[in-house]
């Protein structure tokens, strides 16, 4: 109960920050103030908030869970590749998006695409795909909130109530505070998580009797492979370096790039981003691996046992039996279980609040979706003059409420695994949409038809992967199920974790084909008018 009380206190602080941001706006109903905090964020808030926006529950809890089952490879797959690619994309693409936003008054990426390629409905197609890929985040955020409150309160707060509380809190500060409230809350949450994450490592390490003994013990056990990458394909590892391309293409990140007061705000963000990633991911991954050496936690032992059964008997099981056992290996709560085992009650509450902070990173997606609906659909087709700034802000607030309520209702009805899968597709889909941004910003000859071809390809490819994984059940750990062989190579195969195309993850061919389509179709179709090209590429 103490832990739950601390978490509720934290939630109250978060709501207050949103209300404070509303007061700071002093009742202004300006579009740029609500959607972009008047393009006025300073360097510290810009770094912490941008980083916090990228560090979702999926990243924090999922990294420990992935490391528990797959070992140290998790850091190389998801963290160190992001440490290079994400800040690099912020430097090359984010700064240009900021400059164009400042010059031409853009609020969303689709506004940029429409203006750059002189198109209207093609922008709507891009908007539709972005919205479809982003929606599952909002649902999974509400689910994560419900689950975390349930665990932290020791089952006292039921899932439906926890989800409702989190949805209400997020809705409140996004509704009132807009981008300023969201950025401040994200900054507060990121600082909290960095601080309590450090404490967690010390407390858990001390509780386990030191990490040296745990690491040596793991090396001497049958699980020693978790400390190297001997069971991971180098091609699979390489494929993962394409995933962080998704970051800059996520609409909430692109929109966030427009909030900086000056372009120099990007400097510290770009330099410190890799260190922030290390500060959060290194302990999460290491603790996830070391959880395999934790005795006396029945839930962790059950996960380890399910993993052993799947590896040894998985091939004799039916797909349905494998799914049941695989579900038991899910270790996303392993960090919470470690805290429960080693942290004193008051500290568990503080750390639970820190984890809630990560779970609630869904606020940026809600704000981005409401911004996109308002600006890219209603205002675009209805006309800016007709609505006026006040009406646009009110419409955005209405969307915040509608989206949150919708996400909550869906979260109560649908199984979580569906949305976890959808998020995996989203990363791949947005990575494959990144050529659109590159072409718009760097290539004069890119055209709207090239953009349309890339977008349709991404939509088709994401759907095809989803259908394939739905039709061919995931095999047991070991060799993949080959669906199509070409020239003696495994052209298409179902792996335990997803799909492989010539040994690569689908993101690799999807990004390459998307870029190729942009190039080829742009070559074959007429360029935008010289006036537009001159505005974007001044001599």
């Amino acid at each position: 109960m103490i832990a739950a009380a601390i978490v509720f206190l934290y939630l109250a602080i978060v709501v207050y920050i949103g209300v404070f941001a509303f007061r700071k706006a002093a009742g202004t109903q300006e579009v740029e103030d609500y959607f972009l905090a008047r393009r006025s964020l300073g360097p510290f808030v810009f770094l912490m908030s941008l980083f916090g926006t990228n560090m979702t529950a999926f990243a924090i809890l999922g990294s420990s869970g992935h490391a528990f089952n797959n070992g140290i490879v998790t850091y190389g797959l998801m963290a160190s590749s992001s440490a290079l690619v994400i800040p690099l994309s912020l430097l090359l693409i984010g700064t240009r998006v900021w400059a164009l936003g400042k010059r031409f008054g853009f609020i969303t990426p689709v506004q940029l695409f429409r203006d750059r390629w002189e198109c209207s409905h093609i922008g709507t197609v891009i908007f539709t795909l972005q919205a479809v890929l982003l929606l599952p985040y909002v649902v999974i955020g509400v689910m994560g909130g419900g689950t975390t409150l349930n665990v932290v309160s020791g089952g006292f707060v039921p899932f439906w109530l926890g989800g409702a509380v989190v949805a209400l809190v997020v809705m409140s500060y996004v509704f009132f505070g807009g981008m300023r409230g969201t950025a401040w809350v994200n900054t507060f949450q990121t600082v909290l998580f960095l601080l309590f994450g450090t404490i967690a490592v010390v407390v858990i390490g001390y509780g386990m009797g030191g990490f040296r003994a745990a690491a040596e013990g793991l090396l001497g056990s049958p699980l020693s492979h978790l400390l190297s990458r001997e069971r991971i394909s180098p091609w699979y590892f390489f494929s993962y370096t394409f995933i962080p391309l998704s970051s800059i293409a996520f609409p909430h990140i692109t929109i966030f790039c427009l909030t900086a007061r000056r372009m120099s705000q990007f400097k510290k963000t770009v330099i410190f981003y890799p260190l922030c990633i290390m500060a959060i991911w290194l302990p999460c991954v290491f603790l996830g691996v070391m959880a395999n050496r934790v005795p006396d936690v029945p839930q962790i032992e059950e996960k380890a046992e399910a993993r052993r059964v799947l590896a040894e008997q998985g091939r004799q099981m039916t797909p349905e039996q494998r799914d049941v056992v695989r579900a038991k290996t899910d270790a996303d709560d392993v960090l919470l279980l470690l805290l429960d085992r080693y942290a004193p009650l008051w500290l568990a509450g503080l750390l639970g609040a820190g984890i809630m902070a990560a779970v609630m990173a869904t606020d940026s997606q809600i704000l981005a979706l409401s911004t996109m609906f308002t600006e890219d659909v209603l205002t675009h087709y209805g006309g800016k003059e007709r609505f006026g700034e006040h009406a646009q802000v009110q419409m955005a607030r209405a969307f915040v409420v509608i989206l949150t309520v919708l996400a909550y209702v869906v979260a109560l009805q649908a199984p979580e695994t569906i949305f976890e899968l959808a998020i995996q597709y989203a990363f791949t889909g947005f990575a494959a949409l990144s050529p659109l941004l590159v072409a718009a910003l760097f290539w004069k000859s890119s055209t709207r038809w090239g953009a349309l071809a890339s977008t349709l390809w991404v939509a088709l490819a994401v759907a095809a992967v989803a259908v394939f994984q739905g039709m061919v059940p995931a095999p047991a750990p070991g060799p993949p199920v080959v669906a199509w062989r070409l020239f003696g190579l495994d052209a298409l195969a179902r792996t335990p974790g997803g799909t492989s195309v010539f040994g690569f993850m689908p993101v690799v061919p999807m990004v390459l084909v998307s870029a190729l389509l942009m190039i080829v179709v742009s070559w074959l179709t007429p360029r935008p008018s010289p006036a537009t090209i001159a505005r974007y590429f001044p001599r």
Partner: protein
Amino acid sequence: MRRALLVLAVVALYVLHQDVWFWRTARPLVFGFLPIGLFYHACFSVAASLLLWLLVTYAWPAHLEAEAERRPGAGVQDPE
């Protein structure tokens, strides 16, 4: 020349991410508990930060800020 060196450094770091030389071994355990593969990638993150500092220092697109400040509010064009 400086720009070419920076591009080369970015490509080199990207290639260094694929550290096949530490693929199948956990030892040595750095500080007595950190597997070498994990330590390497932590160092990779620090190297990325240093490289980005170099890029920000020597390849910062300052002209973009100047252009953005010089030509404010040109307005969004009407759609087709």
